[in-house]
């Protein structure tokens, strides 16, 4: 699960997208209250465009995208919740990344 948010925090929240799980239905993009998601330029391995956080400064991490997603591929979170969670489990970092999926940036 990777974040599409740039390294610097410009909004109140961000989204995490499992790129390879996405089927490109556009529900998240269409119903994002902040209108901050767009389709990726790239395709995932199944041949779908997936959502990217095109306007990170608008994202508030409300997870409306995550509530619509029929494939459980996207999840929005507020930075303050992320920080709280990461503080509680600072000891374990690298283990979590075993489940991360590579972004669909295949050459």
């Amino acid at each position, binding site marked *: 699960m990777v974040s599409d948010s740039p390294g610097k925090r410009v909004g109140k929240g961000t989204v995490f997208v499992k790129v390879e799980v996405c089927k490109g239905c556009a529900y998240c993009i269409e119903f994002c209250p902040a209108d901050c998601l767009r389709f990726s*330029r790239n395709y995932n391995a199944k041949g779908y465009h997936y959502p990217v956080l095109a306007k990170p400064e608008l994202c508030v991490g409300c997870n409306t995208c995550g509530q619509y997603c029929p494939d459980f591929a996207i999840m929005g979170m507020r930075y303050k919740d992320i920080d709280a969670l990461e503080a509680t489990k600072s000891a374990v970092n690298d283990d979590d990344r075993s489940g991360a999926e590579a972004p669909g940036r295949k050459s």
Partner: protein
Amino acid sequence: MNPTEIMVSDADEKDVDTSRVAPIENPVLSMLRQDRLPHIWCPGCGIGTVVNCFSRALMSSGHDMNNVAVVSGIGCTGRVAGYMNLDSFHTTHGRSIPFATGLRLANPGLKVVVFSGDGDLFAIGGNHFLHAARRNLDMLIVCVNNFTYGMTGGQVAPTTPLKSTQSTMPFGNFEPPMNLPFVADAAGASYVARWTVFHIRQLVRAMKEGMEHKGFSFIEIMSPCPTLYLRRNKLGDGVDQVRYFKEHSVLKNGANTQDVAITATDPIVVGTFVERERPTWLDSRNAQLTATLGDRFVPYGGQNVQK
């Protein structure tokens, strides 16, 4: 409706930070059999969204997940049982309700949710629906109405709108569709609601209400079938249909169910239409047998179930 215009990100994707991982797994996944994902539903299908809502309804319901069972019939929505991390039963076509009846009555501690499609519940299973509603069996029925038979390739369903084309109505449907909330209401259901896949928050709330409601609860959820219904009728993609739901729904809680039929021109009426108190089948049985048999009556409590 026009097909969705694909708006591609302006951002240079080199800027996309791939180094960060989510601090937690998507909590919805805890309600699902993750070893069975990805699911079989098409891109743009709304059933996944309904499952998403159901998962969140379960998480916030406070129920012990060991005591919730889901029963499905056959069809696209019939596959829901297979993905829920609950005691789950994928039964025969149209017969999820009588299966759930036996399960619920033989194990009164269970919360039983029936998840199935419009064809399964109202065509082949219509009679069972009527009688379960009449008996006010304590269960929640979630009907995903996608106006067609998806699994078999888009045949005409009891809910297919007039004039729509389906593979077995190639020249336009001339059979009037069924008004599902009206049928449920008339048969005696004690909780009746309709929402669409657009109404995710209302759906979560309705599913929780339906599970808590004592008696026969029915929720119709209108959902797009992009592959068969929408494509054949040139109605765009799944997201176009959900946008249509958004733009053409009107909320009328307590609406007379007679007036909520889906037509080509009228707005889609959504809301909680019926909420009534009525003794459940089990309560009525126990009361009647106590009144007539007195101390001789031994209620079914599972105490005679051999374990």
